[in-house]
């Protein structure tokens, strides 16, 4: 009887934990091979000299993503030379959100002059594996041997609307900590964002 109750309870818990799937800080992150806006395939392993990768799930249509475009460019320009380049990934299904189609990504990357790859997760399997739930959503990875270890998950900073009013630059602080040999603190933050537009089954 007790075993049955435990079994039922764990099934219920498994059912409700759908949202909690994905990586946690300390997990090993999977590499990917996704198509960039220039038509070439990009993987993290294409950066053999990097100390890590700043993976940012972001997209064209989301107002919060748009608010952060300039800040993402600035972060890439500042940290790529220090060993942490940005790789942006569009997680959205373009049937659900036509503004996030591959051809529109090419247009947006050109308009904004992205200095980093902007990849399309066409099958959404990387988005699912990482557990990205909104845009923009940052996963800061540190390279250890051949592995990419998740060191920070969350927001870029604490004021999406107004860069001038930012009090805490979460991502930059996390990067500075990693570069100084420390663990990021906080290593997990939340922010309002747009939902991932999952393909309809």
């Amino acid at each position, binding site marked *: 009887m007790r075993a049955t109750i435990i079994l039922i309870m764990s099934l219920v818990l498994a059912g409700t934990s759908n949202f909690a799937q994905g990586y946690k800080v300390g997990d090993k992150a999977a590499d990917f091979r996704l198509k960039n806006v220039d038509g070439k395939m990009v993987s993290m392993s294409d950066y053999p000299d990097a100390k890590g990768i700043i993976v940012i799930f972001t997209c064209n249509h989301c107002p919060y993503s748009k608010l952060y475009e300039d800040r993402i460019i600035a972060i890439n320009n500042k940290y790529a030379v220090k060993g942490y380049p940005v790789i942006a990934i569009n997680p959205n299904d373009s049937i659900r959100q036509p503004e996030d189609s591959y051809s529109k990504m090419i247009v947006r990357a050109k308009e904004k002059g992205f200095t980093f790859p902007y990849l399309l997760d066409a099958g959404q399997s990387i988005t699912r594996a990482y557990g990205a739930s909104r845009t923009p959503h940052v996963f800061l990875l540190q390279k250890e041997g051949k592995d990419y270890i998740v060191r920070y998950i969350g927001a870029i900073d604490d004021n999406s609307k107004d860069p001038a009013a930012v009090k*805490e630059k979460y991502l930059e602080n996390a990067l500075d900590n990693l570069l100084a040999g420390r663990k990021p603190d906080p290593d997990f933050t939340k922010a309002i964002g747009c*939902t991932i537009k999952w393909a309809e089954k």
Partner: protein
Amino acid sequence: MLDTSGAFMKTNLKYVLFFFALLIYSFSFGQQVKVYRDFDEFAPLLQRENDTTYVVNFWATWCKPCVEEMPGFQELNKKFEGKKFKLILVSLDFESNIKSKVLPFIKEHNVKADVVLLDAPEQNKWIDRVNKSWSGAIPITVIYNKDFYFFREGTLTYEELDKIVSKNMK
């Protein structure tokens, strides 16, 4: 109707015109939207302890799934009108977009429920105070009364909403 006696008209014409101007002004904006810039001021909306069942939906005009589920909330509001029920639509649009986006949306979609706007920075500090399992993506919906609590990240249909509210209403 207004008092249109001669004396009133002569002495108070200016005030009447001013009153009309005010009336036209308030009609042109329709519903007012209360703005919360501080989560502490907003928090009580999620913690009322009385017989009313509150349905609190967090949305934004820019959020496609939010806009898609809005008719279901409107229908729910219509069904439970006059009962111990209150629908609160919490817009996460920026305050600067009230006139350009939020009010036109309310007008266009004929929104009858209370609309408030939460535009508070340092979201990392208050997202968990709404619900610990909330990632920050919208829509979310909180349904509660003093004995019941429900949270959903993602959309809800009218049928789901109706079932939850009907079953738990006081």
